[in-house]
């Protein structure tokens, strides 16, 4: 409508998991690829552990709307236990769903995706490999970011690594490694025709 290459993404997580940080870092990657990004949090007070959302919009044109995102092309799920109806709200039929989940539960998510492209990455386990935990909650932000950059074909791994330099407040080495693993290990789930 206003700009043909407009990309709109919504990230679902829990307060403290780094959804806002991931949106901001993805914006940094988009910026390095010549896009104008807008990254913003859900408007309101954030509480640890409570469901939160963060948003990212980017385009080759600065002239994008400034409203919140209601019909994202891509939804990223940090915590697979979040309510499915919240996750799917407004997600375009031709859109993409990226979930932090292991491959053995892919049938469940195929049904949820209902014909949309579906990608899974076992981010909680990868984060745990690097000790990325806070009060037992896996900090999957960087792993999910790596996966997101890969599935959107937003940038090569090297650009992602450069974008993260000096941008992560704590555990920089571990998060960099997590982002690399997310980038490399995210997989598209080939879905049965029945769900398409």
């Amino acid at each position, binding site marked *: *409508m*206003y700009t043909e290459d407009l990309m709109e993404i919504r990230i679902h997580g829990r307060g403290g998991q780094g959804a806002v940080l991931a949106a901001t870092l993805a914006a940094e990657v988009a910026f390095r690829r010549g896009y104008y*990004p807008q990254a*913003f949090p859900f*408007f309101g007070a954030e509480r640890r552990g409570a469901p939160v959302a963060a948003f990212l919009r980017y385009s080759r044109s600065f002239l994008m709307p400034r409203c919140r995102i209601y019909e994202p092309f891509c939804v990223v799920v940090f915590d697979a236990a979040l309510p499915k109806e919240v996750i799917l709200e407004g997600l375009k039929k031709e859109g993409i769903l990226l979930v932090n989940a292991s491959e053995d539960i892919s049938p469940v998510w195929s049904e949820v995706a209902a014909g949309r492209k579906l990608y899974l990455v076992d981010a909680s386990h990868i984060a745990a490999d690097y000790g990325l935990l806070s009060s037992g909650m896996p900090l999957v932000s960087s792993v999910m970011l790596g996966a997101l950059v890969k599935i959107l074909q937003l940038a090569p791994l090297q650009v992602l690594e450069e974008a993260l330099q000096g941008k992560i407040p704590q555990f920089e080495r571990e998060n960099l490694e997590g982002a690399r693993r997310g980038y490399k290990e995210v997989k598209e789930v080939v879905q049965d025709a029945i769900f398409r």
Partner: protein
Amino acid sequence: MERKLMNGNQAAALAVKLSRVQVVCAYPITPQTSLVENIADMWARGTFPGEYVSVESEYSAMSYLIGASYAGARTFTATSCQGLAYMHELLHWAAGARLPIVLVNVNRAMGAPWSLEPDQLDSLSQRDTGWVQFYCANVQEIMDTVLFSFRLVEQTRIPCMVVYDGFVLSHTYEVVELPNQEQVDAFLPSPPSQGAFHPSRPQTIQAVTDSRYLSRVLQERHLSMIKVPGVVKEIDLEFQEIFGRSYPLAEAAGLEEAETVIVTAGSLAQTVKSTLYSLNGGKEKLGLLRLRLFRPLPGDEIASLLSRPGLKRIVVIDRNVSAGTGGIFAQELRALLQGTFYRGEIYELNLAGGVDLTPELLNKGLQALAGKSGSRGKIIWGVDL
């Protein structure tokens, strides 16, 4: 020029640092909090050379700055909604005493009930305090307008409020061109000597006055305020020379051909602008007028921008309401256009309470208003559409 991703609050904080502000005094309040946290953080790291003073309320923050400003310091504070209202009495004082203070207000709805939505009533309620008010539309403009304001207040000795939408701009990261310190120093010389207070020269100022003297003071303030649009234009020329960016008093887009002009302020304007040529299937010729300098309202400039023979209707989008009267920007525009060439209606699409303006809502609003003829003052509420 270096470009970096940052949000509105970070941009304002960086502008304060680059402006070599000497005294910052503030009290945190959402959604302003990260702005003052950023300044406090720079202060704690030793990269902000000014004083950062924590106080127990916004009332004290403005009081402190009034004192610091009397003493000749370059001063800054920031707040939102209830915090700004709490400063109200002192906003009058700062303007009356002609103190060059810069304040950022991050728009947030006034309670009750409690809300975090970006309603504009907080800053608009301070319309008559005698402060200059700018409404910003993007993060770059926030940084530039804060820098600009220090120059403006020191030249005019009228305090200035830089206003932007809570969350929509305060918390949104986007690409900003960073000015460097040399550029800012060239634009903003040291704060002027202001005949500061000193214990060796005790004096009373702003003592009790009678109506004749007071009326002169108020007349002088009024006349000084009227000159502000001209001063802003002059300073903008220098700003453009140094930073390569320029800002109009009011932003116009597509006005030449427009049959309908949408008038709004702040970040709402970008949503309108981005959809200007595609709304309503592109059938209607639409234009945009964004109010940027709101106090003083540059009446001549706005009237001349709107002076187009093809103009059939004006639609004002307010994200505020003066209960019982309507949107405040719409009221201002009606007053401004009274007795001019424009004889058409001024319609209102009201988004009070922070209703989000999507291209779809804008389209619906324009269509709903199309059916309203001869109903001057009629409001369409976004929440009803």
